[in-house]
């Protein structure tokens, strides 16, 4: 294992800003795995740390095959993590809206450029990602449909779902999109949480990556075989929204199987505890996403359902 500094600059009153990478194996640039880009992505850092530990062991045991360099970057943004701010410390910009970056531009454009320059030549790119809303996911690989996406590869992670979505305007400035444009096979991996550490789900994510690496002949690894992934287009998700605003009392969790008509949650009047809306499943489905905040705004997507069961 080799530690490298991917990008850094001098702070005025803070320690230097540093993005650190951990390199394993030798030879061609094979796989790059990235953790948090935002200040609240604790689970993403933690998942990477488990992966670093595993790869370190596999390297010592000689189980990384010749001709493969692997890079793990647990955190692209320690400055925001350490002050518990989601986006960039001074100007609130999002590094994951700055790719491919610009080395003569503003700070977060430079960080994106500095990172991208180092990671754009890998054959595979895997990012532990987070959703913009607070909530829990059923573990999944997400891919953007750029024309370069390879669904069969994504299934090799053995996670329950592979989700495909069409890029929206802002997606064109994300790492995943630019990786694909630069012909890296890019995957976003969603474990169940972001701001809270879920150890089981983190281990499942790490196992999925190791399984993928083994199937691609990069490492020797015998983990759980995982699932035979179901491929879903994101527009086939059924969003179950609140019509009312109030306190959310959920009855089901991400990963649950639900029956048509089953109560998913109640919206409760915050002052009188009266039920103001009963939210039910519109079809038999798997709960793919569960919103996690006690306050429900009107029209918030509280659940995303994938029709069918498992």
């Amino acid at each position, binding site marked *: 294992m080799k530690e490298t500094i991917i990008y850094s600059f*001098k702070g005025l009153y803070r320690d230097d800003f540093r993005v650190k990478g951990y390199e394993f194996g030798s030879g061609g640039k094979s796989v790059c795995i990235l953790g948090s880009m935002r200040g609240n992505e604790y689970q993403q850092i933690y998942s990477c740390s488990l992966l670093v530990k595993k790869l370190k062991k596999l390297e010592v045991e000689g189980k990384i095959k010749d001709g493969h360099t692997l890079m793990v970057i647990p955190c692209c943004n320690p400055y925001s993590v350490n002050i518990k701010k989601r986006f960039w410390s001074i100007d609130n910009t999002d590094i994951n809206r700055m790719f491919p970056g610009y080395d003569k531009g503003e700070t977060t454009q430079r960080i994106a450029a500095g990172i991208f320059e180092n990671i754009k030549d890998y054959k595979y790119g895997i990012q532990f990602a987070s959703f*913009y809303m607070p909530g829990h996911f059923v573990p999944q690989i997400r891919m953007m449909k750029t024309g370069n996406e390879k669904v069969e590869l994504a299934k090799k992670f053995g996670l329950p779902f592979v989700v495909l979505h069409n890029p929206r305007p802002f997606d064109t400035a994300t790492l995943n999109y630019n990786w694909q444009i630069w012909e890296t096979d890019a995957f976003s991996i969603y474990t169940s949480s972001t701001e809270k550490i879920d150890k089981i789900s983190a281990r499942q994510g790490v196992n999925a990556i190791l399984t993928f690496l083994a199937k691609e002949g990069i490492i020797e690894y015998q983990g759980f075989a995982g699932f035979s992934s179901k491929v879903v287009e994101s527009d086939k998700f059924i969003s179950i929204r609140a019509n009312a605003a109030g306190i959310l009392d959920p009855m089901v969790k991400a990963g649950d199987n639900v029956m048509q008509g089953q109560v998913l949650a109640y919206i409760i009047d*915050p002052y009188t505890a009266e039920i103001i809306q009963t939210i039910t499943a519109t079809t038999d489905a798997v709960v793919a996403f569960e919103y996690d905040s006690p306050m429900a705004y009107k029209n918030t997507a509280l659940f995303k359902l994938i029709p069918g069961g498992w």
Partner: protein
Amino acid sequence: MSELIENIEDVVRFPLPVDEEFVIKRHRIEPSGENIGKRICIVTGIHGDELEGQYVCYEIARRIRRDSLSLKGIVDIYPAMNPFGIDSITRGIPAFDLDMNRIFPGNFDGDMNEFTASMIVKELEGADLVIDIHASNIFLTEIPQIRINEKSEKELVPIAKKANMDLIWVHGASTVLESTLAYSLNSRGTNTLVVEMGVGMRITPDYGEQLADGIISIMSELGIWEGEVPKTKEAIVAYDADGDDVCYLNAPCSGIYMKEKEHGAIVRSGESVGKIIDPLSGDVLADIKAPENGMIFTVREYPVVEEGSLMGRILREKVLNGES
């Protein structure tokens, strides 16, 4: 005698979780007499910490009331498209960490923000002109200017020239900007101008009056105003689709930026425009010099910089000479 008809109405209204309603309001002013049926919309407050447009909204209403017989069409004023942001000194939408100007055209069936964005587009679509007033951000001061996506150049530059601004900056298209209000409206055939002027969190009354003069001039051009029209200035037009008209001053290191030139200053190549200092060591970390002849049209207002922070933008001399 013709009187004005004035109404303050909701654009959207819906309940929030705890005993409050979310509401965006519109002030409509129209003549009770002859009305040519044309409509101009004055929009501001999409970024909650940009307040320059607040004074313009007030000033336009004041000028119309002062000379009420001159109004011949509809003037709709929307001072707060992001009321949560204005209330909490937040650029984006608090509680959602979203830039409101990245969610248009919205989605009627989406969450409250997407729904709101879709209602705003529905509300403004079909107007004869929309003016969306921004104020740079809290970091930079801008001379009064209109920014136009090259895709809408043909429709918008002639109108923008009547707006009494110092600069019209026609910039290159970018996919990311497709989710702005202006892009959504222009692509639906509703002409929309984006004004950037002054600085975040402050109001510059001179700029407000300059723009109000420009709006009255545009209203006259549209036939909505038959009263006196203030004399307007001719803007410098930068046709900068290739990014060749402007040079950027980015901080070479972190420190405290002491500007030495104000926005609007003409500078020569090699001339000092500011310094980056280190108050801890007492050292000058960098002397910032103009890389070329031109005009500083953006200047850093917030002194703390880190490597890469924008300290200013210079409009190249050739543009000032009309060779854009």
